[in-house]
């Protein structure tokens, strides 16, 4: 069944302006997907899914805006294809609480607070519960690195990942956004559900 599904999306792009995009290319390789780095908007034409990786959201936002149409091209890409955002990626896809620096792409209806756990000494790893009617409930591991928090979300957005009482991952249509890093533990499940 899985091998049949894996063939559905042929090529997945990983936004490669800054951050740990290499780790996501490796995870995609591990689940049998071909992938390519995306550094210019025209490269989106070739792919059928996109990962916006972790890194520094301010930096990635800044670099996206160096190319005139990059932001609008990603927004129209999102109308047809799934996007997975981790940490900085989720920040860029959602709305931001009281943030003057980064303006989000508004792809997921959720309100995010950056660095909500504090600075690096407050970074941690934990077990995260995944729950959704699309798959069997399970636990995966993830790291929260200067991580954001999901403060609230709209009706079109469903929570699917939980750490203690907090929502740490949401799904909005075909898009997924998470505040943590499963790729640090080489966890592949979220990549599989997003692109299958």
């Amino acid at each position: 069944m899985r091998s049949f599904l894996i063939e559905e999306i042929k090529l997945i792009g990983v936004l490669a302006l800054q951050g740990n995009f290499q780790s996501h290319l490796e995870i995609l390789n591990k689940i049998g997907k071909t992938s390519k780095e995306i550094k210019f908007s025209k490269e989106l034409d070739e792919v059928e899914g996109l990962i916006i990786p972790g890194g520094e959201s301010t930096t990635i936002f800044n670099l996206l805006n160096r190319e005139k149409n990059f932001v609008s091209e990603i927004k129209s890409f999102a109308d047809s294809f799934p996007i997975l955002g981790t940490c900085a990626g989720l920040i860029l896809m959602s709305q931001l609480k009281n943030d003057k620096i980064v303006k989000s792409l508004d792809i997921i209806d959720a309100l995010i607070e950056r660095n909500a756990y504090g600075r690096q000494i407050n970074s941690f790893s934990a077990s995260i519960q995944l729950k959704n009617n699309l798959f069997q409930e399970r636990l995966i591991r993830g790291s929260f690195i200067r991580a954001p928090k999901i403060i609230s979300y709209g009706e079109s957005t469903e929570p699917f990942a939980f750490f203690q009482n907090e929502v740490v991952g949401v799904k909005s249509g075909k898009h997924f956004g998470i505040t943590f890093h499963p790729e640090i533990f080489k966890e592949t499940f979220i990549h599989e559900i997003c692109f299958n």
Partner: protein
Amino acid sequence: MSNKDTFREKVALAEMLKGGVIMDVTNVEQAKIAEESGAVSVMALERIPSDIRADGGVARMSNPQMIKEIQENVSIPVMAKCRIGHFAEAQVLEALEVDFIDESEVLTIADEEAHILKHPFKVPFVCGARNLGEALRRIDEGAAMIRTKGEAGSGNIVEAVRHMNMINKQIIELTDKNLDEKSSEFRVPVELVRYVFQNKKLPVPNFAAGGIATPADASLMMQLGAETVFVGSGIFKSSDPLERAKSIVHAVTHYKNSKEVLNASFHLKDAMKGILMSDLSENEKFSNRGD
């Protein structure tokens, strides 16, 4: 309490800084310019290396008030330097909640016998290295990121190139036959040497620092295997800091694409003047500090 259990999170932050530029800044205004230009992090310090070199005297950890002001004014991670072996300066920086501590040869050495034991700290450390043995000793002590020492404040890339090439060469020279021998030569546990042999890379991200002054310098270091670059004096000692900072960021993002490195190199004014290694005595080289 040992914080070996937080090593994963320390390295994870270093992972998030990949493909970026970390810039030395001495005040809030420069920090904001760095952030605007696309820097992935700033290193807050009172004097940039070329001024430390020119001024002489003892170079210490920066004034915490200055670091705090920078922390309050940018959203990217803020790093700060402590002297080699000066664990009390590191404790102060940890209490200040800087995101990374650079145990740096650019400051005056505090302990000539030993570096800081970094595992007990919750904040991650970056340390300079000239060769594989030095890199692995620092990692064994708990460093979560390695950078070339290069020659800070020189505007001359030659030492950074030497150190990066040396580490790469020594990695290739490891074989399943010489791991024990290398472990005693490097004075580190054999498991660490075996990891490098098996993975053909360090167990933590390897960045470049020391002498990077132009977009092409940044591209060169990335092509030699650096995963991010530190730029110290090169930006705020140039005649056009914002443009130069943006250009170096662009050259790192597109380091394999020579057309883009070319684009980044247009319209720049003068780079910092720089120093020839032959004009520095061995005593004057920062990179000779610490082993």
